[in-house]
């Protein structure tokens, strides 16, 4: 999942800030601490951040805006990566405008 906040900086230039969250089981070969990809190298999970049934995955992501900037366009992209980051399957894209002034 990639959360993007687009806003202006003090000089009026476009700024894009991104934060990512990765949801997947992570395995090593249990001989070192390097994560492995591919069944022929993996032996056991050492961490599991995947999306589990009946357990909503909640995140709070914060962006600090430059002084004087009062609005940002937020986009949340949820996608599935097949074998590598280039093989994306889009799932949801949600965009919202966030205003700091009432």
């Amino acid at each position, binding site marked *: *999942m990639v*959360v993007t*906040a687009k806003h202006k900086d003090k000089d009026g230039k476009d700024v894009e800030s991104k934060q990512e969250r990765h*949801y*997947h*089981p992570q*395995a090593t070969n*249990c001989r070192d601490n390097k994560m492995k990809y*591919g*069944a*022929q*190298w*993996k*032996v*056991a*999970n050492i961490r*599991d951040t*995947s*999306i*589990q*049934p*009946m*357990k*909503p*995955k*909640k*995140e*709070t*992501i*914060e*962006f*600090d*805006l*430059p*002084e*004087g*900037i*009062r*609005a*940002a366009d*937020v986009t*949340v992209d*949820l996608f*599935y990566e*097949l*074998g590598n980051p280039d*093989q994306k*399957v*889009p*799932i*949801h894209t*949600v965009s*919202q405008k*966030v*205003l*700091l002034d009432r």
Partner: protein
Amino acid sequence: MKFLRLIFMLLFMAFPLIVSAEKAKTIDELAKMYDSSSCKECHEDIYMQWEKSHHARPLMGVKGGLMLTPLAMKGATAFSPDDPKKATAKNYPCFKCHLPQAITSAEDSVAVELTEALLTAADASKTDKEKADAKAQIAKLQIGCIVCHSDKAILHKRELGEPQKGVLYSSKAVAEHGDAMYKKVEKSIVMKDSLYCGQCHGLGPNLEFDQPFQCANLYGSYLHNYIASGGTKSCQDCHMQKGDHLIAPNWNDDKGSTELLKKALALDVETLGYDWLRKAKTYVSKVVVNTTITSTAGHRVPDG
């Protein structure tokens, strides 16, 4: 008398070995032994669904890849053979699920042929035709109707015995089955149960091998997260609705994959903009994004 009894016992024990010794020596022989194409004559819809499924291309990975290539390459994995000509089924632990018939019904010469084909398909010095031919040969190895509806259909073998020759197993029995080889269909008591899929879709590390490895954890996740949280559906309830033998996802179908994932995962987004008082007279303009992903899948996502 005791001696004669011993002879009879030895003969009885040896007989099944002689029968089972008829194993495929080549990829073509193994593919022919497990050929399901005649099933299409009467079960066309199911067959066409299966043809698009990952079961029809268990060695191909996604998007036309060849998942077993590292296993064929010397030194690339702990399982890889030093010499392709000396490859055996032991070099391919993935056969456990990706080609179970190779364990029961193939000579090691099939592993040799597979190794050579995998190396050819990955060899930049080979012509496109040579590479395509090698890939086409590997693609003949499939998880077809006979694997699931015969070899894998009985789990309680101590009580129910091995699958019988000439008998298929399904969720319903059919007294007279119009096939030249499989004239009868018996009811498999586990075919509608998640346990059936769990034979291959994994509990975690495969510790029964001399070098453990881990592929899918899906069934483990189903048991320890979904069932443990009160879930009651089976794999088949969601992935084989109305007997669908595509058994989605089909990762080669981008649109279908998106639709399936959309159905399984809901995303809720809430935002808030405010001025955070960091310390006296010092405000920080803050944007907060709260996300909640809710899954209706009966297993972790991702898994396989």
